[in-house]
């Protein structure tokens, strides 16, 4: 078992052979070869041709050859030596000539074995497993034909040379034939058995258990019985020649089909053994003819039996392997298909639950493939293969041109495409869709198709629009609140001209009541009245700037932030004046334009200015100084700032002041800055506050420049 284990374990790592093998891995096989050769030679000496004086079956050939086949060439010397020793041990040490002759015949044995092993290596069959037709055919050809021929040639020459030949005609060819036949029989029976048992040992040990073992025993016993009756039984029995010759065939087929090469070889050996016994004893169907022909018939019988049986066994193995590979392949494909199907189902489920539709726009045919959900959301459920134009024709007319141009531009620029637009459903209702797509290219780099997703974003859009409306309402309420805050100062500004107009009118009336009115004075009075009226009108006009309610959509337009700041200063002027605040402006003009709603940005500025004025209420009039400016910061943002000299903001409240209902005023709602931040965020800008090193706070409004 140690040998088998060694070789089997070696078979798993063939590379190991090329390295210098450990000593015990050389010694053990060599010892086995030596012993087996010794026993085999003894056996061969018994089973001999009566006339040719050579063995019918010469096991040492099989032993040495199997050893060489199963060992790396670097160990061959040891095996050859072992075989030589084993062989010499059988030779009776009578005289030097006998020993020299025996040693010389061993050369023939070496030649056979080395020829077989080397030829198999050369033909890439260094580890024959008898599981392929090609490999088995090559093995049988080499071991049963070529190597015996080589060995017979050398052996016969040596025998003739040493004169160890029995009397008779054509000594060389007679001896050659005897040697060739005996070795050929070994080559197609014993050698395959040893090699296949060793190389397939793992398989045999794994599969040959329980019922299989019983079946094997049944096979061998059956075969032995049949072979005994057919091949050794009396040739004058009731059985005709063909029946006797074919009798073992069912068992051989059984071995080949049900078991494998090793069992087949074993069965063949059984057949060969009985055949040889029959021939040697002049019994059985092969013993009819003179003994030489009987051996030839035996040889042909064994070759014709062995070769097809082994080939059949190999074929069965090959088929088995192909089938199992095929089954594995089929199982693998099935698994892959199942996985794919499961993946697709999950994908579809995910897509459905995410309300996701898929599309692919073939740029050559212009046909757009849409998933079912995609067709539904597009309102194109009835279109079989819609073209790009058909789909675009369903887009809301206000968005249609934009979408068409954007898609064409994305293809031309080889960029991903992302669009939101409305489609008109057949029920006349508009739905908002969002598409995202990317290009796929041919191998030559030409755009092939655009694939992507489509989502119904109507609800989101509706929420967005609602949110925008709410924000605008809030902003408007904020303005109303700001106006309320400013009403005192505004009233003051209106009362001054109204008072003046009233008194000027009275003065003019009094003047005109005189007999000689001073018309020049009346004219001056009327001029003053007109002036004051204009003053009052201006105040009203400023009021209206803030009172103007958005027309539903905020009017975003390119604006000069410095101009907006000036407007804000204008609106807040009454308050600034009423509070005795001195204003310094640092407006840069022109700055890059910003995109925004004029009224809303004015509102922000007015709020910042009023807050700044209020924060300085407790300061002496001379210290109520306000600096308002605009600039462009390093990041390219357009910034407006309002610097006050007030009390500043507590460090932990710098961010809090922008939250709703956070106020420092006893009667304030705390919405002003919160609304301002909402407005600024809607403009994609930033609004924040810092404390000044020398007292007071600075509020910043930063807006991105117009793209």
């Amino acid at each position, binding site marked *: 078992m140690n040998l088998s284990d060694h070789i089997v374990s070696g078979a798993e790592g063939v590379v190991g052979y090329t390295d210098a093998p450990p000593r015990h891995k050389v010694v053990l096989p060599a010892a086995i070869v030596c012993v087996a050769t010794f026993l085999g030679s003894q056996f061969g000496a018994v089973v001999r041709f009566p006339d040719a004086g050579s063995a019918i079956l010469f096991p040492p050939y099989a032993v040495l050859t199997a050893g060489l086949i199963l060992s790396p060439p670097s160990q061959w010397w040891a095996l050859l030596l072992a075989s030589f020793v084993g062989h010499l041990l059988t030779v009776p040490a009578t005289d030097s000539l006998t020993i020299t002759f025996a040693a010389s015949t061993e050369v023939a044995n070496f030649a056979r074995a080395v020829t077989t092993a080397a030829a198999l290596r050369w033909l890439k069959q260094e580890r024959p497993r008898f599981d392929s037709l090609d490999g088995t055919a090559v093995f049988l050809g080499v071991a049963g034909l070529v190597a015996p021929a080589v060995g017979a040639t050398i052996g016969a020459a040596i025998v003739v040379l040493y004169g160890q030949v029995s009397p008779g005609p054509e000594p060389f060819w007679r001896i050659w034939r005897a040697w060739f036949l005996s070795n050929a029989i070994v080559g197609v029976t014993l050698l395959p058995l040893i090699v296949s048992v060793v190389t397939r040992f793992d398989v045999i040990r794994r599969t040959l258990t329980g019922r299989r073992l019983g079946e094997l025993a049944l096979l061998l016993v059956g075969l032995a019985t049949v072979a005994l009756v057919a091949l050794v039984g009396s040739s004058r029995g009731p059985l005709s020649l063909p029946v006797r010759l074919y009798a073992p065939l069912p068992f051989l087929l059984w071995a080949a089909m049900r078991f494998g090469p090793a069992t087949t070889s074993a069965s063949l050996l059984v057949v060969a053994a009985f055949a040889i016994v029959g021939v040697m004893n002049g019994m059985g169907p092969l013993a009819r003819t003179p003994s030489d022909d009987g051996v030839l018939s035996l040889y042909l019988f064994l070759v014709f039996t062995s070769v097809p049986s082994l080939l059949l066994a190999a074929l069965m193995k090959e088929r088995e392997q192909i089938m199992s590979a095929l089954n594995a392949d089929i199982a693998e494909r099935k698994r892959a298909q199942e996985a794919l199907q499961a993946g697709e189902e999950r994908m579809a489920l995910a897509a459905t639950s995410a309300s996701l539709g898929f599309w692919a726009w073939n740029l050559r045919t212009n046909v757009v493939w849409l998933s079912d959900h995609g067709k539904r959301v597009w309102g194109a459920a009835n279109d079989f293969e819609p073209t790009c134009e058909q789909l675009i024709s369903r887009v809301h007319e206000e968005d249609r041109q934009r979408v068409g141009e954007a898609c064409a531009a994305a293809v031309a620029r080889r960029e991903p495409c992302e669009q939101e637009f409305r489609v008109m459903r057949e029920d006349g209702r508009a739905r908002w869709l969002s598409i995202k797509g990317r290009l796929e290219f041919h191998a030559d780099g030409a755009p092939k198709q655009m694939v992507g997703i489509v989502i119904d974003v109507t609800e989101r859009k509706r929420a967005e629009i609602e949110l925008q409306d709410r924000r605008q309402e809030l902003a408007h309420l904020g303005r109303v609140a700001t106006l309320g805050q400013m009403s*005192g100062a505004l*009233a*003051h*500004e209106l*009362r*001054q*001209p*109204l*008072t*003046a*107009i*009233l*008194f*000027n009118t*009275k*003065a003019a009336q*009094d*003047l005109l009541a005189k007999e000689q009115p001073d018309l020049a*004075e009346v004219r001056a*009075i009327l001029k*003053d009245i007109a*002036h*004051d009226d204009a*003053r009052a009108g201006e105040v009203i006009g400023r009021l209206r700037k803030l009172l103007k309610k958005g027309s539903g959509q905020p009017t975003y337009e390119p604006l000069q932030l410095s101009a907006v700041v000036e407007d804000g200063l204008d609106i807040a002027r009454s308050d600034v*004046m*009423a509070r*005795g605040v*001195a204003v310094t402006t640092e407006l840069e003009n022109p700055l890059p334009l910003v995109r925004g709603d004029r009224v809303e940005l004015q509102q922000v500025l007015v709020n910042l200015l009023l807050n700044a004025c209020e924060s300085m209420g407790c300061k002496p*009039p*001379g210290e*109520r100084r306000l600096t308002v400016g605009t600039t462009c910061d390093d990041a390219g943002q357009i910034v407006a700032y309002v610097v006050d000299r007030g009390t500043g903001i507590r460090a932990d409240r710098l961010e809090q002041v922008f939250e709703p209902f956070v106020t420092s005023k006893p009667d304030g709602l705390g919405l002003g800055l919160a609304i301002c931040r909402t407005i600024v965020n809607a403009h994609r800008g930033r609004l924040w506050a810092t404390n000044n090193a020398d007292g007071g706070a600075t509020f910043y409004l930063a807006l991105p420049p117009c793209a």
Partner: protein
Amino acid sequence: MQAHCVSEEDATGMSTRSDQRHRLPDEWIAIVDDDGSVRTALARVLRAEGLRVDTFCTSQDYLAARSPSSEPSCLVLDIHLGGASSMSGFELHDFLAERGPMVPIILMTAHDEVPSADLARRVGCDGYLRKPFECDAFVNLVRRTIRTTAAD
């Protein structure tokens, strides 16, 4: 805010004053208001009533023009006098009250300040008017104040 104090306007006021000084030497009205339009309009009406009127843009201007020998019969004073360094109506009142006999004062304001009205009454002002006010009411208040002072 200072811009409302147009110098030529004051020059006009000065010339009017010199015309009327001989007729009513003891009864002259001083108006202090930082709003030029209001100042001029009030002065026109009072002059039409035959009163001698001087107008001043700031408290400082008024203080510079008066002297113990020539106190106005009535001082018409705006509470909110603009300009960061300007003295407000109340401050001028306090300043005058600390320096001798009180000149009759009528306070005016364009703001809705209830505290101011209370304060005006408490400090003993002769009148308090919220702009815009009636011409007749104003003229009557000024005349009544002058009479009361004369009676004292």
